[in-house]
């Protein structure tokens, strides 16, 4: 069954460890600032049943998907490649192909840090555009904004608008964490999301008020 905000839900499939946290936070921010709702596996606790069941449930509730495969590379810390991201991409694509009528209208982008690397990793996906973000949050913001703008009838403001706003958010972020007693480096998804949504709402309100005063 189609859930209430299905057309606004965006499933984020990327690594959540400290190395990728900046990219993940930039994605969550941009998705929310563009008027969509960020959803990911972190929104449910680890002790609430089987992890993959929760992920499948979230995928079912999302029309859009952002899949970042940049973190599947082998490092000294993880000597084997990580298959979580490609696996969840597969579930998303399966849902799109075999799901109900509204599920077939799912849309997604696949991201990687470097262009054309996917040909060695996952050559079956040839033909899909793997958008390279070079592990740069600003490039990532522009990619996501451009893609989400295309999904809407009304165009969104340009990438620079979102990059500047994110920069301002990052300046306020440590102060907000301090006032709430949070640790800015290890803040969990739910609290981060609450901060992002409250900050964006305040910015939108201020923009409206300043427009009236001028």
């Amino acid at each position, binding site marked *: 069954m189609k859930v209430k*905000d299905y057309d*606004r839900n965006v499933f984020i499939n990327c690594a959540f460890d400290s190395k990728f946290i900046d990219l993940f936070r930039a994605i969550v921010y941009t998705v*929310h*600032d*563009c*008027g*969509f*709702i*960020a*959803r990911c596996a972190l*929104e*449910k606790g680890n002790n609430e049943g089987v992890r993959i069941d929760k992920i499948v449930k979230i995928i079912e509730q999302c029309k859009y998907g952002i899949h970042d495969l940049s973190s599947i590379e082998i490092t000294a810390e993880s000597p084997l490649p990580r298959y979580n991201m490609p696996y969840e991409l597969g579930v998303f694509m399966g849902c799109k192909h075999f799901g109900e009528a509204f599920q077939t209208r799912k849309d997604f982008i696949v991201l990687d840090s470097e262009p054309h690397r996917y040909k060695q990793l996952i050559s079956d996906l040839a033909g899909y555009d793997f958008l390279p973000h070079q592990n740069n949050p600003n490039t990532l913001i522009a990619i996501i904004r451009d893609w989400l703008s295309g999904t*809407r009838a*009304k*165009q*969104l*403001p*340009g990438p620079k*608008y979102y990059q500047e706003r994110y920069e301002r958010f990052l300046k*306020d972020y440590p*102060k*907000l964490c*301090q*006032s*709430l*007693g949070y640790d800015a480096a290890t803040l969990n998804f*739910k*609290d981060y*999301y*609450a*901060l992002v*949504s*409250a*900050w*964006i*709402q*305040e910015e*939108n*309100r*201020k*923009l*409206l008020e300043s*427009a*009236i005063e*001028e």
Partner: protein
Amino acid sequence: MAKSRKVRSDIRIGTLEKKLGLEPGSIRNPDGTDARSNKKLETLRKEFTKAKSGKIKTNPTISTKSISRAAKAVSELSSGKFVANKSKPATKVVKAVTSKPKAKSSIPKKAKRAIKPKGGAKAK
């Protein structure tokens, strides 16, 4: 210097964006969605006032309580009333203790009533 006219509250959002030279789609609803271009400024202001009390439509797993807390911190920061967390819990604890003096006074009263002899006899 010539004074510009005040923006009327019945102006449409699309017109307002054009008038102020903002990019289309810059002015948004409180929940972050696009504000319709034919929406009145007055309506949007009312919605923002309502949303101040924590009624933001977001991820269903995020509790309203945490959104309200975050909204309070953000509004404090933007209004220049930023306070670091260190002093906050201490003041709350002190208030909680001092605001319940009844609990202490009820025990001696009950004890006095129990000691007081029946039949109106006066204690010497």
